[in-house]
């Protein structure tokens, strides 16, 4: 494995897809906030599982079932330690952040919420951290309150403190905005939530592959993340939270593997994590995620953060050389997310023209329509950085944007 030493020396060779040509030019992948590419070690782990170890977990007595079970449970331990959780926490595998938040909303709703209670989220949430709470409010009579942001894209913390009160039961906040890159002060948020007796949930979809995560240090009750945004496989994610609380929450889905006993009169459920993992889990996904976490740890989260910070600073500087370009999201603390608009050019047309040069960015509302409404833009173009990106990738982006400017003068 290559080492990440400075912002031009990258890990491209570990990722087979980055050797691919798009329309005859080498792929420059800048859509990491949507999903990351997979290193060979993750691909190998998936192939190894399916070619040498495939079996169902938990209930088998035969050799392969025991191997699969061991590896699946080892994956759980690996994720738990990656997130800095101790054994008072339980790590539940889900299909991704979306399912993790839905699971939490479902369980917390029945356990905690009464009419007029409040759930606090922010103006910058992804739809997946808005809608589950919105539906929960409709069902329980609770109210959704929104923490506002500044033009720079930072939470107005004094407003947060004003909104937080004895009726606040849940505070659900994204660690990093998928549009703005803003890193939110989640330690302070979780600590203030705790003082009010509210449960905190941190959406780590955009942070877990870019910043050191320690759930105990953060002080969060729940932390959720998705493997595919962490160089791991699609279809698997994590909900990490207090085992004691989770055991009091009602099951999200029901079926096999999560029960103590079943009669037609009554079913008794197992404790966490099994209680929330009905049916055959994504075993290969958990094993692939382990390989991805090993890859991240071997590269070093501090090295990753410093690499991406250098690229972000460089990118922020050179992007503004493009006439009419406006960066959306100028928080003091950001990860490598560069959202922008270009005067007189719709983001879809930017993305279409960049594709011609093999450059993959995303355009649209990024599943954060309330945030688009705040900035009065229908959409943005977004270049989002990952561990394999280099200064040259940013230069190619800027050159291509100059060409876009020529097509749309």
């Amino acid at each position, binding site marked *: 494995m290559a080492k990440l030493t400075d912002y031009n020396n990258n890990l491209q060779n570990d990722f087979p897809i980055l050797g691919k040509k798009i329309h005859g030019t080498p792929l420059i992948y800048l859509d990491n906030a949507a999903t990351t590419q997979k290193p060979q070690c993750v691909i190998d782990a998936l192939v190894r599982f399916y070619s040498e170890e495939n079996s169902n977990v938990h209930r088998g007595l035969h050799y392969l079932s025991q191997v699969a079970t061991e590896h699946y449970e080892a994956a759980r331990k690996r994720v738990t330690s990656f997130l800095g959780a101790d054994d008072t926490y339980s790590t539940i595998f889900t299909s991704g952040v979306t399912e993790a938040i839905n699971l939490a909303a479902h369980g917390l709703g029945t356990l905690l919420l009464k009419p007029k209670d409040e759930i606090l989220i922010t103006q910058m949430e992804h739809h997946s951290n808005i809608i589950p709470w919105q539906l929960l409010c409709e069902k329980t009579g609770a109210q959704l309150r929104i923490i506002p942001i500044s033009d720079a894209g930072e939470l107005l913390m004094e407003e947060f403190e004003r909104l937080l009160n004895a009726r606040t039961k849940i505070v659900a906040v994204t660690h990093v905005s998928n549009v703005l890159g803003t890193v939110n002060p989640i330690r302070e948020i979780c600590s203030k939530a705790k003082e009010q007796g509210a449960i905190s949930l941190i959406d780590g979809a955009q942070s877990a592959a870019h910043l050191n995560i320690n759930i105990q240090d953060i002080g969060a009750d729940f932390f959720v993340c998705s493997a595919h945004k962490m160089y791991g496989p699609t279809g698997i994610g994590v909900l990490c939270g207090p085992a004691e609380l989770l055991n009091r929450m009602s099951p999200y889905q029901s079926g096999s593997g999560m029960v103590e006993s079943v009669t037609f009169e009554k079913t008794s459920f197992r404790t966490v994590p099994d209680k929330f993992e009905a049916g055959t889990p994504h075993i290969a996904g958990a094993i692939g995620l382990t390989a991805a976490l090993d890859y991240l740890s071997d590269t070093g989260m501090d090295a990753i953060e410093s690499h991406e910070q250098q690229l972000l600073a460089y990118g922020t500087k050179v992007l503004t050389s493009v006439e009419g370009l406006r960066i959306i999201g100028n928080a003091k603390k950001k990860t490598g997310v560069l959202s922008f608009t270009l005067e007189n050019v719709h983001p879809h047309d930017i993305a279409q023209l960049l594709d011609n040069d093999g450059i993959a960015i995303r355009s649209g509302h990024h599943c954060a329509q309330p945030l*688009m409404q705040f900035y009065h833009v229908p959409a943005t173009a977004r270049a989002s950085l990952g561990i394999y990106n280099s200064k040259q990738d940013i230069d190619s982006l800027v050159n291509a944007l100059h060409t876009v400017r020529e097509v*749309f003068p």
Partner: protein
Amino acid sequence: MSNSHHLYEKIILDHNRAPRNFGKLPSPDIIVEASNPLCGDTFQIYLQLDGNVIQALHFEGNGCAISKASASLMTTLLKGKTKSEAQNLLESFQTMLNSEPTESMEESELGELVAFSEVRKFPMRIKCAALTWRALDSVLSSDESCTHPTK
């Protein structure tokens, strides 16, 4: 896939920069909403009818160059046409967006719409080009909504 620069024909760039009939109509018979929730493009189409004839057609809203230029050209091409003439043109346009080009395309009734013939090579953008046309078609084909204003 071909070079995406070919998508942006001069006439498309022109209608994108300076869309024709852009803005509300003072007293439309029908207002139609055309939106693509996947990408966030949203337009309103204002239609004024005189019996079966499209007397005035305006639009406003937000979208990419392809959807905006297509809407702009639509307003210029359909003004003065009967409902069935408009639907015929819509059908030819849709056919062009979804099939291989033919020899006779240049001479056909499509006229300036031929500028959109490259769009068929970019399947994700066909919806952009057809967005406002399909919305307009949905009200033209419903006699009910044409005889009873819905503004």
